[in-house]
């Protein structure tokens, strides 16, 4: 079936198997491998992207369901060579170690700040509840999102 998705501002149309997942579309069709797969069951959040502005787990969205939609992946977050404040926050606060959960975690963080521009620690924790990190112990991730919300430079 023909699927057309606007990915990071560029339209991509492709004839795909109906069972193709959005994450496979992004990784295999678009070649955007920044979106990772950690569990294939919506539980770890490594595959989180924004679909029409909403954070979704792209491992359990069919490409067909995203037909006609707009997707933002980690590759599309920086604008004109300038990091998104959440990306910058992760860098400044050592919000990542192995980096595997990071793209999904950053996009979840972007969603947190869109919904709650000045989140409390509890609101940040609730907002990234669907994203697992095994390296950092989350403290620096929480710091990173908090810093992005303050627009603070180190």
């Amino acid at each position, binding site marked *: 079936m023909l699927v057309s998705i606007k990915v990071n501002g560029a339209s991509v149309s492709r004839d795909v198997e109906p069972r193709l997942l959005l994450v496979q579309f992004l990784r295999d069709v678009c070649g955007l491998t*920044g979106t990772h*797969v950690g569990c294939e069951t919506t539980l770890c959040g490594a595959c989180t992207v924004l679909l029409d502005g909403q954070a979704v787990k792209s491992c359990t969205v069919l490409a067909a369901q995203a037909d006609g939609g707009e997707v933002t992946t980690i590759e599309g977050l920086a604008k004109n060579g300038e990091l998104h404040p959440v990306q910058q926050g992760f860098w*400044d606060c050592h919000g990542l170690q192995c980096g595997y959960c990071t793209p999904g975690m950053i996009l979840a963080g972007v969603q947190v700040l869109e919904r709650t521009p000045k989140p409390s620690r509890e609101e940040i924790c609730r907002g990234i509840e669907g994203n697992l990190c095994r390296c950092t112990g*989350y403290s620096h991730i929480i710091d990173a999102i908090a810093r992005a919300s303050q627009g603070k430079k180190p």
Partner: protein
Amino acid sequence: MKNLVGRPIKRVEDPRLIQGKAAYVDDLRLPGMLHAAILRSPHAHARIGAIRTDAARALPGVTAVLIGADVNPHVSMVTSPDVMPGQKSPKHTVLAGERVYYVGHAVAAVVAADRSIARDALDLIEVNYEPLPAVSDLEAAAQKGSPLTHPELGTNMAYTWDLKGGDAAAGFKAADVVLKVRMRHPRVIPMPIEPRGCIASWQAGDETLTLWTSTQIPHLIRMLLPKLIGVPEHRIRVVAPEVGGGFGAKLNLYPEELLLCHLTRRLGAPIKWIESRRENAATTIHGRDQIGDYEVAVKKDGRVLAIRSRTLADLGSYLQMGTPAIPTLTGLMLPGCYTLRGIDIQVTGLHTHKMATDAYRGAGRPEATYTIERIMDIVAAELRLDPVDVRLKNFIKASEFPFESVAGVTYDSGNYAGALKKARELASWDKLARERDAARREGRLVGLGLSTYVEICSFGPSHMMSAGGWEWGSVRIEMSGQVTIITGATPHGQGQETSFAQIAADRLGIGLGDIVVLRGDTSVAPYGRDTYGSRATAIGGTAILMSIDKIVEKAKVLAAHLLKSSLKQMEFKGGRFYVRGKAAKALTWKELASEAYNARHLPKGVEPGLEASSFFEPPNCTFPFGTHIAFVEIDRDTGEVSIRKYVAVDDCGNRINPLLVEGQIQGGIAHSIGQALTERTVYSEDGQLLTGEFIDYAIPRASDIPEYVMGSTVTPSPSNPMGVKGVGEAGTIGAAPAIANAVIDALSPLGVRHLDMPFTPEKVWRAIHDPASRPPVLREAKKGGKR
């Protein structure tokens, strides 16, 4: 230029990782690449009958379907060294032979044009299994008449290991009280967010094999492969690309890596295999899983004289590389921070129909720390003493280092009372204790617990290791004056691309932006012993330092020659070489490098080039230590534990980058919080893994993590010139006992004297409401110190 070592520098690794530009193994695509999927046993123990693969083979897009009989004659599984006297080791093959003996055991492999087709084909393979009796419970496996994991071995017992140190018998004779308790160290699953995966590619023309694999140990794998796959070492390249978490789970050589090395030669195409989450949970190593009976000889004043332990260790169904050795680390570190008179330790390793255990973050030391720190609290509780006082009474003193523990391990340096004092201050211990007491009077369940840990890491002198405990590193000043560092360590998130550059920047007087650190490729780093056991900075960093010193010496000779002076007169400061007193006329690295490679004006006998490499052989391991304090409250109605305050004071010697150290400790504590509160590995009686996904194996989420108060003391290690100790595992080793002690303290007014992890709401609720569910502590008073 300000020194960079000791400062919280942002990581140079991060720009690629936060923009989706990093390449993990699943991100690599080779022309003509095929994809493998693996059919796994649904039974814990069964005889394999007929396997029908014709329907799978007929599926369009399928290249090959192979079973054990096709593969095993050509490729072998790595065997664990027989480290124990009389060790009984089962033969393990790449694909199952006549029997499967754990759920997830690989039975057949499909190779196809893409991953979806390969997985579809798995469903078309028919295997006739004849189920056999299975044993999944460790204690059941130790019983006579238990089903045997490997009938041909005649027993489930793989080995018995004894460690006696000091005079335990004298300690028990002199004791006023003997305490007896049974403790369990539950099985945990490492669960890195990136599962395992690999790509193998055979280049027929030059007869070389390249293996890209999500591993911590590309060098060790390259060393092990030749005998197993029949390709000589110098024709093998192993690459660990970006690796998405290891924690010991990727400190191994697994059957799938061997299988793919074989299949790429057999089929003449590059082949990729990526593990699913369920496969990761079921077929990547697990950790811990010990049950111990402990007897503790104590004086009335709280002095612990001796410990006797009889421990069963669940090795799982077969042996991965480090499986049998891990429980011995528990024995070696059982004395903890304390001066005991004697220990008498016996570990029995047993096979069960479960996944193999091996080195998961901490690897044997969390079990040791948990045991000794619970013992200290049990002693305090039973003798009505203060848990802090009991520790202070038994500590090795700062003046006694280097200290040979009763287990025969020489601790390098320490100040245990110093870290304890600092943690108590940061926690406002006395205030918390008053708060707890006030809460208790209101009927609330509030507890305060501590853990004072010491661990062994930075393995190690080569005599301790089966394949060298050194590390290698090289430094090259390029003709441009920029610097390429190559390390044999294999960082995968720890941040040594940054910390090693910091070390070099200071020593060379060159900016961080002009330094790059390469790692993880055996063709780039010809030697290496990789990253595990918190060793990369202490050992790998020192190899870099040694190489820099060699280069500086050579550059001085060259500079003296070019400046028409003598070596004695040469000064080196801030990246500039000059004759003493003539700093204005200095040569820079760029100028010297240009001369070194153009080689037209070299002094006699000096080789061109400006590079050096070094092996560092450490004289000893390092012994980080610290004190962790947890303050918890338990919901009486639900049994839920919440950590209200957490204080961590860690001493890892000198800190190259405190930000990275903090990240390692926080991450380590999170693993411990998982083990203590949320993670529970459940195998059914017949060996089904019931916690094989994140939905039922609950690694901590952000909301499970308290806000930390973190502090440090600094006691440099004499085991390396930088005075650093490792820090990758310290948090995991130190934290769980503090949480356990706090939880049990909270429940103590109800009569709870011990409880085993994990403190899930159900278990805690039962402990609150059902006295029969509480493990006992037996107490044997002795008159006049006689038996």
